[in-house]
């Protein structure tokens, strides 16, 4: 009798100890795609290992060394055939310098299927930019209130060889354009965040979407960027901010879309 009880007890313990967690079973109708971020200079791949070297030449002919590159993307939107848009609130800080944030899995799920367009916001729209975002505060990504508040959209720092053949720093910092000449009456001339449309993308249970940034484009189209003119202290310069935003619209493109298996 005791043997039977012990045997049953062991079996029960084994069964409970080995039970799989049904809550983790795969949901075949929903998925959380992953976005990866790659960087190149007119087709030549760029990573943090290429930083701190004068190996890039911009469209204006200036030789450049990149020291720091980090930027925010936010509000990814999946537009269905019906026109319905699924907006995913959230943001991701891509820190190329420290190889962080180069992969971003959506914090929520979307239905599996083909979407006619997938888009994201470069930077933060004005509503998001007015939020208190703890992760960006911790990353010291803030824009001071005297410059409109909120956050940087991008910090792109480095050095270039100026027209006097001297090494000189540049801080290509993109923020919400502001005219702060009257500190008591900040004027925001136009929005400088922008939407990047990636086009139609099929979403399966394990889709990975590559977003490519051609860094050279920040200096190229439609505004030929002269670092001898625009190099540092560009945050309070609304004109420079608008030029950055215009160039930024040609920077991103869709890379590889891979459909993995789970």
């Amino acid at each position, binding site marked *: 009798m005791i*043997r039977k009880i012990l045997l049953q007890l062991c079996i029960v313990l084994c069964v409970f100890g080995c039970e799989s967690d049904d809550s983790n079973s795969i949901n075949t109708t929903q998925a959380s795609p992953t976005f990866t971020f790659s960087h190149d200079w007119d087709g030549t791949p760029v990573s943090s290992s290429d930083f*701190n070297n004068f190996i890039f030449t911009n469209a204006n002919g200036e030789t450049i060394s990149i020291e720091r590159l980090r930027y925010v993307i936010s509000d990814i939107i999946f537009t269905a055939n019906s026109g319905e848009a699924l907006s995913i609130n959230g943001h991701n800080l891509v820190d190329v310098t420290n190889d962080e944030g180069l992969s971003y899995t959506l914090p929520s799920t979307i239905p599996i299927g083909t979407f006619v367009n997938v888009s994201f916001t470069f930077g933060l729209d004005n509503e998001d930019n007015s939020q208190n975002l703890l992760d960006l*505060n911790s990353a*010291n990504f803030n824009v001071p*209130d005297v*410059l409109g508040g909120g956050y940087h959209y991008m910090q792109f720092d480095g050095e270039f060889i100026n027209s006097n053949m001297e090494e000189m720093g540049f801080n290509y910092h993109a923020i919400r354009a502001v005219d702060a000449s009257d500190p008591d009456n900040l004027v925001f001339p136009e929005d400088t965040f922008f939407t990047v449309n990636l086009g139609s993308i099929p979403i399966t249970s394990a889709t990975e979407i590559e977003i490519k940034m051609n860094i050279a484009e920040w200096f190229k189209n439609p505004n030929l960027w002269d670092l001898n003119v625009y190099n540092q202290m560009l945050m309070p310069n609304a004109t420079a901010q608008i030029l950055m935003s215009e160039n930024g619209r040609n920077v991103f493109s869709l890379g590889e879309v891979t459909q993995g298996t789970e």
Partner: protein
Amino acid sequence: MKKGWYWIFLIFLYLNCSDDDTGYEPTPMPLNIPEIFSTNIIPPVIPSDNPQTVEGVALGKKLFFDTILSADGTKSCASCHSPQNAFTDNSPTSVGIDGIAGMRNSMPIFNLAWNDNERFNWDGSALSLERQAEEPVQNPIELHSNWDNVVDRLLAHPEYPELFELAFKTSTITKELTTKAIAQFERTLISANSKFDQYTLGEATLTAQELNGLNIFLREDKGDCFHCHGSPNSPLWTNNDFHNNGLDATFTDLGLGAVTGDPSDNGKFRTPSLRNLAYTAPYMHDGRFATLDEVIDHYSEGLQNSPTIDPLMKQIAQGGVQLTAQEKADLKAFLLTLSDTSFINNPEFQN
């Protein structure tokens, strides 16, 4: 066969119940996170293998102030990290037990739980707070001990074996447990009650000069201090990163570069917090500036160019950001609002 099942069952019970017969557990002691941090920045980094406990913190505090860690029993951690100096000292470089001065200024100790890049020391050589506590004990120009001897002294001490038992549930004293306890105490050293913190919380007002100083601090075309040293929403007042801030044209101390071996890191040092500057002179990694005025002068007109100078340093050809005498005075007035008297006088942090 009947006996076989019996023994299997007994072994099963033993394996599940033999860990700790006493049932004693150290008392959890979560960090008391100030409002100014909880509302602005992400929670601190606490290693999963070294949770904060009442007993661990108490042990760490005792060790921090105890000269037992030094070879000749003359100095403790607190000898170079004094509470009255926001846990640094007032020497350009600290002097060890043999009277030999080191090459670096003692770093202040506060808010280190929020150093989420986990590189400590001026040169980033220690990859955790626990590991940071190892090196000074055995450094020949600091406490000049041998960890084996330290452990022997702690084992022979009338109180420490019991305190380790209470903190870590073991009478086996090791270097690792000793530094874990010290790190637990150090994580409790939180400074967030300066005049500026009170201003942010609506509990104090700043003078016109202090507000103007803040404005200079935050303007990219003036001081541009915020890119490395934080802002009201980033209230650690450091980015915990490493920069070459233009101190030298050539380097006698490579800083981070000596640690990583990457020439592009030469001359880079950890950004110190601007909190408690009133108590932490002299300044910079080598304590070269005796006063805050000298520090501000450096950024205004004293920058030295070098291949690794940070691009955030501006107007290098002119020596810096060219502040007027009034702007310098205003900036200094603002910086001093980051002083936290309650921190340096906190009885929890005294010997």
